[in-house]
C-alpha cells in the first residue's frame, strides 16, 4: 500500500510535481488508511488481551491441565476445567464438515463452470448462493426437528449395520454398546448387544455444518475455477484430452491453491458456528472413536453456559479461556492455510490465480 502511494509522489526522474492540494489529500488519505489498519490490529490485540486477562484465573489455576483435562465440572467447590472434549468436538465436527462439503463443492463448481448446462446454470448458481443467506439458527431448527430424528432412526442405524461392522473403521460408526438381552436367570450376563444411535451427536453436527459451509466453499471455488486461463483448457483440448482429462490435468492443478483457500474459509465458518451445532451436537462431554456419541464444541459451550456464568468461582474465567483457545486454534489454522496456499501456488508455478492467494484464509463466524 505504502509503495503504491509513494509512486504517486513526484520523484527524482522529473515527473511534474502534483499540485500541493492533492499532495495534502494524499497524505490525509494515507494517514487515514494507516490508522484504520492500525485500529484493526489493535482490535485483535485488545481481544487477545481481554480474553487473556479474563481467562487468567482459570489458566493460572489449571495450567496445561486446562488444555489436556477431560473434565468440565462447574459445580461450586469441585471445579475442574479441562478443554480437551471441546477442542476435540470442535475439530472433529469441522473435519466431518470439510470431508463431506469440499468434494461436493468442487464438483458443483466444476459443473457450473466446465459443463454446458444451458438454462440450468444460472438458477443452480443462484440457488447455491441462496443457501449462504439462510441464518444459522434456521439450519439449527431444521437440524433439530427434521434432520436429527431421521439420523437417529434411519441413517445412523443403517450406517451401524453396514460400515459399523467393518473391523477398523467400524468403530467410528457405532454408538455406545448396550445389552439387549440378558441370560435367563442371570441379569448380569449379556447374550445380545445393541449399539446406541444417539440423535444428537458429532456426526449429525458435522453433516449440518457441511450443509452450512457448502455455499461459501462452492462460491469461492467457482470463482477460482473461472479464472483458470482459457489457453490452458484449449491447450489440453488441442492435445486431444477429453473433458475429464482437461479438468484433471489443466484446471484442477491451477485452481488447487484457490480450492485450499476456499476450504479454509469453510473451515473457519465451521469452527466458529455456534447455534446450529449446539442444537444438534448433543452437548455431552466425551472423547472416543465413535462419531455417534454426543459431543460438545467450544462455541456451543460458551453460548450455553455464559448466560448464567455469574457464579462465584472460576467458571466464567474458564469460559473466557476457552474463547482464547478458540481464537488461537483459528489463528494457527489460518497461518497454516496461508503457508499451504503459498506452497501450492509455488509448486504449480506460473502466476498465482487472481484472488486465490488473497482469499482471507479464515473467518470465524457465528
Amino acid at each position, binding site marked *: 500500500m505504502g509503495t503504491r502511494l509513494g509512486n504517486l509522489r513526484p520523484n527524482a526522474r522529473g515527473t511534474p510535481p502534483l499540485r500541493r492540494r492533492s499532495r495534502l489529500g494524499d497524505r490525509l488519505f494515507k494517514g487515514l488508511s494507516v490508522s484504520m489498519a492500525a485500529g484493526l490490529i489493535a482490535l485483535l490485540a485488545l481481544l487477545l488481551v481481554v480474553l487473556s486477562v479474563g481467562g487468567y484465573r482459570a489458566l493460572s489455576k489449571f495450567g496445561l491441565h486446562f488444555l489436556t483435562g477431560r473434565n468440565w465440572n462447574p459445580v461450586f467447590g469441585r471445579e475442574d476445567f479441562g478443554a480437551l472434549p471441546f477442542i476435540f468436538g470442535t475439530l472433529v465436527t469441522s473435519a466431518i464438515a470439510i470431508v463431506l462439503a469440499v468434494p461436493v463443492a468442487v464438483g458443483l463448481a466444476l459443473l457450473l463452470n466446465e459443463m454446458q448446462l444451458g438454462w440450468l446454470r444460472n438458477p443452480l448458481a443462484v440457488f447455491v448462493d441462496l443457501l449462504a443467506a439462510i441464518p444459522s439458527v434456521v439450519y439449527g431448527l431444521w437440524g433439530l426437528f427434521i434432520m436429527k430424528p431421521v439420523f437417529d432412526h434411519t441413517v445412523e442405524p443403517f450406517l451401524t449395520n453396514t460400515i459399523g461392522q467393518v473391523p477398523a473403521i467400524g468403530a467410528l460408526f457405532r454408538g455406545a454398546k448396550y445389552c439387549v438381552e440378558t441370560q435367563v436367570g442371570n441379569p448380569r450376563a449379556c447374550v445380545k448387544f445393541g449399539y446406541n444411535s444417539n440423535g444428537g451427536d458429532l456426526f449429525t453436527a458435522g453433516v449440518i455444518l457441511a450443509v452450512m459451509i457448502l455455499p461459501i466453499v462452492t462460491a469461492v471455488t467457482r470463482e477460482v475455477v473461472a479464472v483458470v486461463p482459457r489457453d490452458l483448457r484449449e491447450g489440453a483440448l488441442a492435445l486431444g484430452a477429453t473433458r475429464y482429462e482437461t479438468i484433471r490435468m489443466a484446471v484442477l492443478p491451477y485452481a488447487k491453491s484457490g480450492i485450499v483457500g476456499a476450504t479454509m474459509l469453510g473451515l473457519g465458518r465451521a469452527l466458529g458456528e455456534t447455534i446450529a451445532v449446539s442444537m444438534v451436537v448433543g452437548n455431552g462431554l466425551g472423547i472416543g472413536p465413535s462419531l455417534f456419541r454426543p459431543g460438545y464444541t467450544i462455541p456451543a459451550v460458551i453460548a*450455553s453456559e455464559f448466560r448464567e456464568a455469574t457464579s462465584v468461582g472460576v467458571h466464567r474465567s474458564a469460559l473466557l479461556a476457552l474463547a482464547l483457545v478458540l481464537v488461537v486454534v483459528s489463528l494457527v489454522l489460518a497461518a497454516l492455510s496461508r503457508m499451504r496456499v503459498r506452497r501450492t501456488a509455488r509448486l504449480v508455478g506460473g502466476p498465482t490465480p487472481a484472488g486465490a492467494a488473497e482469499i482471507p484464509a479464515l473467518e470465524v463466524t457465528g
Partner: protein
Amino acid sequence: MRSFKRFLGATSLVAVVVLVGAACGGGGSASGGFKGSSLTGAGATFPDPIYEKWFRDFRSVESGAKINYQAIGSGGGVQQYTAGTVDFGASDAPLKDEEIQAIKAKGKDVVEVPTVLGGVVIAYHVSGLDTGLKLDGATAAGIFLGTIKTWNDPAVAALNAGLTLPASPIQVVHRADESGTTKVFTSWLSAESPAWKSQVGADKAVQWPVGTGGDGNDGVAAGISQTEGAVGYLSFDFAVNSGLGVASIKRDSDGQFVAPSVDSISAAGGILEFPITSDTNILNSTAPGAYPISTTTYLLINPSPADKNKGQTLVDLLYWALTKGQDGVTTLNYSPLPNAIQQQALGLLDSVKFNGQTIEPSPAVKG
C-alpha cells in the same frame, strides 16, 4: 406526504407530553388512593410467566405501578440487586451467606419473600409406556449416572411391576445451559444417592456422566420427544403442556408414589420454615401428599427503601401477590403457597420500614 410527516410529529409530541405527565403523576399519593410508582426488577426465569401476569394485573389495582421485570436468571438478579441497579431482585435459590454479606457490604439489607411454588418432573418417552412409570431416588440417580442403562433393568422393573418395559437403551437428556431447574434436580439426586453426591454433586450446571444436553426446557423437551427411550427432567409448568409421560416419585417418608400436580407441589410447601436461610428447601417434603422434587422461588426486597412511594408500591404488590394473586397461579401451572405459609410470608412484609416506620399495605390491596 410532507403534511403527513408534520402530523406524525405533532401527534408524537402530544403523546410524549401525555406519557411524561402520566409518569410524573403516578408517583404521588393523589387524592382517591395510592396509585403506585414504577419499579424495575430482574432475576429468575422460572417464575417469569407468573410474574409478568401479576405485574400486568396489579396495574388494575394501582394504575401507576409500571413494573419492568427482566428474566435474566437468578444469578443476574442477585448481582443486580446487590449493585442497586434494580428495585427488587428475584432468585430461585435462597441467598448464599456470601451473597448476603456482599449486600451488607454495600450498606443495604435484603428480605427474601417466597412467592410461588414449582416442581421438577422426570419426563420420558418410551413406546407403549405413555403413563404410569414409577421411580425412586436411587433408581433415578442410577439412570442419570449411567449405571442403569436399559429400561428393563431389574431396578426399574422392581418399581414397576405390571408394566412391560422394553429392552431399549435409556437415553438421558439434560440441560446444557445453567439453570435453577438443574440445581433443584441435582440437589434432590444428591439427597437421595450418596453415589450422585460424591461423583456429581448439585449446582446450576454439573458434569453429566451420560446423555445429551438441550438448551432450555424446550430443548430438553424436544430431545425427549424425538428420541425413543429418552428420559429427562423438566420444570413442571413446562412438562404439563409437553404431552410427555411423567414419572411418579417415591416419597422417602412413607414409601408412597406421588405424581407431580399443582396440588402435590403446593402441599410440599407446608414444611417451609421462616426465616429463610441459605439451606432452606422443600425437597423431600414430609407434608402429607407432597411431591418430593418441589421448590420455591423468592423475591428479594429492600427492608429500608430510599423512596417511600417505591417501598409502598412494592409492599402493596407483594401483599396483593400473596393474597389475591395466589388465585391466578394455577392457570399458568404454578402452585400456590399453602395458607399457613402465605400468612408467614405476609409477616415478612412488616420488616419493610421507611424512617423507622413500618410501611402498611394500602387499603386498596387489603380490601
